[in-house]
């Protein structure tokens, strides 16, 4: 199917008309910015086919502000299919109409719509706007904006058409009733077998369990029946035995024998009674003989004891003597040790004295040295103090009043300045005389070559020549001279105040004062160094040192004279003393131990002596009385009686032994027990018989075998039922399995062409990958690579990959439909916006490939994305052929549109 021409009017923003006069048989790309009307064109195509022309609810087709009662949106589509030209025209709302013509046949209204729906493969909703569930093949191939990744629902809605197409392409017939029947059979099977493991369940399991339970119950009952039969047999046996015994009466014979045995036993027991007094007498005699012998033995032991005591005393005495010797020996050693301690103590005393002496000598040396040093210090200090006093006095003698000196200095300065002034106004007279010439100035001879200044009238006398008076020209000279005179007077007064005649003298005294002051300072520093705390302190120390020396000297003199022989050191002497003391201590302990031993030995000796005395007394008493001899006589008598009694006893015992009373006793017991056993057994058997009879009656009344027969009937019925159910379950299992196998094989065969198309496109986009179709014709897992370890279900893929996979699948469906002779048209509205550049490249390749077989309308707002399709994009707005000006709003809209 291919669109050849599209015209629409009064639809949404196309208030006028839009006409696309020519469509390419393959790819057609329409572009425009947002709001340019791409979706409107798509909507119009969909409405033309999918909406009922009578529909009153699709008012989204109306231009804004228009109402259904005045406006008639119209769409006219020209398309070719099956080499025939088709024209479909629909007008909605106000002038609703539908017409469809094809190959000379024309349809109107519902008939027209149904004819188109049958051709394309879709349906209509019962009422209202068309719904996705009715869209069929267009729903699958006309991809709406943002719906590219939704595949399951569109496939579901188109499945019947796809299946029909598949069956047309494959010459196989699917079963019409098969799927429903299979579902029913599975449900039937599920009643009897678990779906997972095929184990019995429901009525089947119930029957199996019942049979098992009955088996167990019957087995138990068989056991009881067996017991019952055994008991019946035992009862018969017991009854026979009892009857036989009652007839034979075996206990009679036993009773007779028992009586005989009892008589014999009685006779032997007579002999036994005689035995007892004899045994008694023999026992008494034996005892008394033993007691007498023991008494005699007692006397012997007494004597032996006395001897023993004597020996013990002797041993104790020897021990005491030995202890005494030991004590004496320890005493001697102790005295010696004490002497050693005394000697060592004396040495320690002497060593202590020498130690003190050495210390005193050292003290004396130190005190003497200190005294010498301090006396030197005192000497220096006294000299330095005298010097200080001298210089201080000298300084005082040359001291001047300081203001007087200052005044003098000022006057001298003023005089010097006045002199300078005077010299300046003075008249210079230079003399250069010939040798031998006598010249005087103001009476004083002048040098041959000299210069003189005069400030007052002067006279020169030249010898041989006369006198020359000279008066200076300037009047000031006199003034200056007066000032000089004044100052000189003042100077004189000042000097007088200072006590000097000349200022040189003042200067001299100033110098002397300065020197004396310096000397005094030096002397003071030296004295401070020598005796910082004063000379008196040094003198006190000197005195202390002297008394210390004297003290040491006196102590030394008080000491005993030094011994001649050398002594050990004090430490050595102390150590020796310590050793001697320790030795003494040890010996003292030894001695104490020996003394204690001695005391013990003495006590033992004393005790032994007492014992010995006592034993001697006892023995003496016995010897003095006649007790021993009497006892001896008694013993002889008793022994004679004992012999006699024993002989009688032997005779009696012999008699008893011959009568064998033990054997007789055993025989009586045996016979009695046998008799008892016989009678007990008889009685017990009677009880057993009675019990068995009772029990058997009880069990017999319970009808064991009757019950078993009932159970057996139930078991057989249940077994039959179980076998029937088993057969049915197995039959269902076989049937379901067979049908599923067939169905699967068939499905595979049917889907093979579709799978081939899918593989074709997949190769172009996802090389090396595979997708197997599921039974519901949707793509299954995407397996990348040969290892099949990267497997993703459709829903797990990225949004972009989902969209790509969905488009691939749609193209495959389209190929399939085409092959089956169904019209195909592919519309993509803003598709694949989530694909990256490389994928988009691949997708363009497959779109180009698909466009060889199908017409593809691609609407986009990004024409630069689709440059790889080999077709130029056409701008949608260029197809607007007229703009309606029916309302102001429309006019405005169109003007705006033109401006753009």
């Amino acid at each position, binding site marked *: 199917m291919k669109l050849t021409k599209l015209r629409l009017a009064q639809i949404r923003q196309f208030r006028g008309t839009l006409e696309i006069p020519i469509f390419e048989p393959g790819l057609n790309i329409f572009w425009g910015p947002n709001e340019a009307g791409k979706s409107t064109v798509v909507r119009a195509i969909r409405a033309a086919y999918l909406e009922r022309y009578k529909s009153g609810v699709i008012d989204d087709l109306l231009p804004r502000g228009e109402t259904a009662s005045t406006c008639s949106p119209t769409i006219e589509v020209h398309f070719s299919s099956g080499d025939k030209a088709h024209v479909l025209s629909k007008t909605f709302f106000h002038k609703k109409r539908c017409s469809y013509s094809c190959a000379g046949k024309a349809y109107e209204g519902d008939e027209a719509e149904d004819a188109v729906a049958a051709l394309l493969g879709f349906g209509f909703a019962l009422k209202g706007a068309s719904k996705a569930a009715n869209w069929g093949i267009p729903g699958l191939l006309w991809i709406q904006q943002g719906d590219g990744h939704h595949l399951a629902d569109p496939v579901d809605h188109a499945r019947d058409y796809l299946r029909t197409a598949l069956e047309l392409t494959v010459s196989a017939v699917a*079963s019409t*009733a098969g799927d429903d*029947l299979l579902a029913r059979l599975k449900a039937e099977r599920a009643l009897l077998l678990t779906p997972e493991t095929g184990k019995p369940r429901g009525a089947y399991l119930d029957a199996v369990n019942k049979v098992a339970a009955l088996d167990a119950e019957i087995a138990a009952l068989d056991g009881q029946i067996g017991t019952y039969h055994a008991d019946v047999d035992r009862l*018969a046996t017991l*009854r026979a035995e009892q009857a036989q015994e009652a007839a034979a009466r075996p206990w009679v014979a036993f009773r007779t024998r028992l009586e005989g045995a009892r008589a014999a036993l009685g006779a032997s027991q007579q002999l036994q009674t005689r035995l007892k007094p004899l045994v008694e007498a023999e026992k008494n005699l034996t005892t008394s003989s033993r007691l007498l012998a023991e008494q005699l033995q007692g006397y012997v032991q007494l004597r032996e004891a006395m001897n023993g005591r004597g020996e013990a005393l002797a041993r104790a005495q020897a021990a005491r003597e030995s202890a005494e010797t030991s004590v004496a020996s320890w005493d001697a050693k102790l005295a010696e040790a004490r002497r050693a301690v005394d000697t060592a103590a004396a040495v320690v005393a002497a060593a202590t004295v020498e130690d003190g002496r050495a210390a005193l000598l050292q003290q004396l040396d130190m005190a003497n040295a200190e005294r010498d040093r301090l006396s030197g210090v005192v000497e220096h200090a006294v000299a330095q103090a005298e010097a200080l006093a001298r210089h201080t006095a000298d300084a005082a003698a040359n001291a001047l009043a300081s203001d007087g000196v200052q005044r003098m200095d000022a006057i001298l300065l003023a005089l010097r300045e006045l002199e300078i002034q005077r010299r300046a106004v003075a008249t210079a007279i230079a003399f250069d005389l010939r040798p031998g010439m006598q010249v005087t100035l103001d009476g004083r001879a002048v040098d041959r070559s000299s210069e003189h200044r005069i400030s007052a009238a002067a006279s020169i006398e030249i010898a041989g020549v006369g006198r020359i008076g000279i008066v200076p020209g300037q009047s000031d000279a006199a003034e200056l001279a007066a000032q000089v005179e004044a100052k000189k007077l003042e100077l004189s007064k000042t000097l007088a105040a200072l006590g000097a005649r000349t200022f040189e003298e003042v200067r001299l005294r100033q110098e002397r004062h300065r020197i004396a002051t310096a000397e005094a300072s030096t002397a003071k520093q030296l004295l401070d160094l020598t005796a910082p705390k004063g000379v008196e302190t040094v003198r006190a120390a000197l005195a202390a040192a002297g008394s210390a020396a004297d003290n040491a000297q006196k102590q030394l003199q008080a000491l005993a004279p030094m011994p001649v022989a050398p002594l050990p050191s004090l430490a050595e002497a102390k150590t020796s003393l310590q050793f001697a003391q320790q030795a003494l201590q040890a010996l003292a302990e030894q001695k104490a131990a020996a003394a204690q031993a001695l005391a013990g030995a003495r006590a033992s000796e004393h005790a032994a002596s007492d014992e010995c005395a006592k034993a001697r007394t006892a023995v003496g008493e016995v010897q003095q009385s006649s007790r021993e001899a009497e006892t001896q006589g008694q013993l002889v008598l008793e022994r004679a009686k004992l012999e006699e009694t024993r002989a009688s006893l032997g005779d009696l015992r012999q008699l008893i032994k011959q009568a064998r009373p033990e054997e007789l006793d055993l025989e009586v017991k045996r016979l009695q027990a046998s008799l008892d056993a016989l009678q007990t057994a008889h009685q017990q058997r009677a009880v057993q018989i009675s019990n068995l009879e009772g029990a058997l*009656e009880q069990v*017999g009344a319970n009808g064991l075998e*009757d019950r078993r027969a009932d159970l057996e009937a139930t078991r057989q019925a249940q077994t039959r039922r179980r076998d029937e159910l088993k057969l049915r379950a197995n039959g269902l299992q076989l049937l379901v399995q067979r049908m599923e196998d067939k169905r699967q094989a068939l499905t595979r065969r049917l889907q093979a062409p579709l799978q081939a198309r899918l593989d074709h496109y997949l190769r172009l986009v996802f090389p090396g990958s595979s997708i197997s179709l599921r039974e519901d014709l949707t793509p299954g897992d995407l397996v990348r690579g040969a290892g099949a370890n990267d497997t993703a279900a459709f829903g797990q893929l990225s949004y972009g990959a989902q969209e790509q996979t969905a488009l691939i699948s749609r193209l495959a469906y389209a190929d399939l439909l085409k092959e089956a002779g169904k019209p195909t048209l592919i519309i993509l509205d803003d598709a694949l916006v989530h694909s990256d550049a490389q994928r988009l490249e691949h997708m363009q390749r497959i779109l180009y490939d698909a466009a060889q077989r199908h017409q593809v309308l691609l609407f986009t707002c990004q024409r630069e994305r689709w440059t790889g399709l080999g077709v130029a994009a056409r701008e949608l707005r260029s197809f607007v052929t007229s703009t309606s000006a029916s309302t102001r709003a429309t006019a405005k809209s169109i003007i705006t549109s033109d401006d753009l």
Partner: protein
Amino acid sequence: MPRFLHTADLQVGRKYSQFDPDDAVPIADERIAVVARMASLAAERKVDAVLVAGDVFDLQTVSDRVIRRLFAAMEGFAGPWVLIPGNHDAALAECVWTRAQRLGALPAHVRVALRPEVIELPSCNVSILAAPLTQRHTYNDTTDFFDAAETPDGWLRIGLAHGSVTGILPEDIDSANPISHDRVTSARLDYLALGDWHGFKQVNDRCAYSGTPEQDRFRGNEPGFCLIVDVEPGQVPKVEPVRVGRYRWQQIAFRVAVESDVDVICAALQGLDVNDVVQVHIEGRTDLAGQRRLMDALGQAHARVQSLSHDLGDLRLLPTPDDIADLHADGYLAEVIAELRDAQEDDVSTIDSHVAREALAILCTELDSTARAGK
């Protein structure tokens, strides 16, 4: 001329586990009903005594109620009944008889020989030499004592015993209780009434098995009779079998080879009535229509007879192409049907032929019901 009713093997208390409980109870009850019928017969034919030659009860531990019902059923004949225990109800130390005595269920006119003895019937000058079984299995001949048993001069000597006459019956029939084939002669018996063999069988002129009066198994040789025996001294006894049994136990095997065989089977099933206890086994092969007709006929018969069970496991179901078309079994369903049809042949497929048949039957039934619903 003394006249007896000779019966044996009443097997009262037997349960029929192979039937549905609904069917089994009436069949079991009929074992007592036949006793009542024999009592009536005895009264009607004015017999001198009823002789029951063992296996009165099927079990030692039948319920008290059954014991009472049995003896109640004997009330229809007031003359003497002489009973001996057989191997099923042997006179053991504790047995059904001791229980009957304790219950006080034995009527005065019913005599049970619990040990070998001679029971004298002075009213007709007859001595009954009774040889009961006193053990579950007896390997010596319990009738040995007949030879030396003293009876009044001129009285008839009638033997009553339970066991297998040696050399006469097939070896496997309760052969544990042997009876000398020469006993009639050696013990000078006028008639020897025997039990144990469930069909009527005349051993010789003076010796017969009455068989069980009410059939109790499919394998039976002339069951359902009791014997009216007239014995006159020095004469050969006159033995008359009288049918008293109700149910006819039949195992019927059919084979469907051609389509008309189905008609034959339907007709045979048509002939069954309420006294029939039937097992039907059908083998061969048939199409869906044949199968449907057979199932209908079996259903109808089942409604009429006392008990009917059938086994079609060996009947191959071979849907014809028309069948398959009628079932609207197109596409792979048709293939499945063909496979299952072939799989019924034992050696063709690994599939169990019975399972295949069941599967096919299920499939056809499902399709059939769908097709009918469609119509």
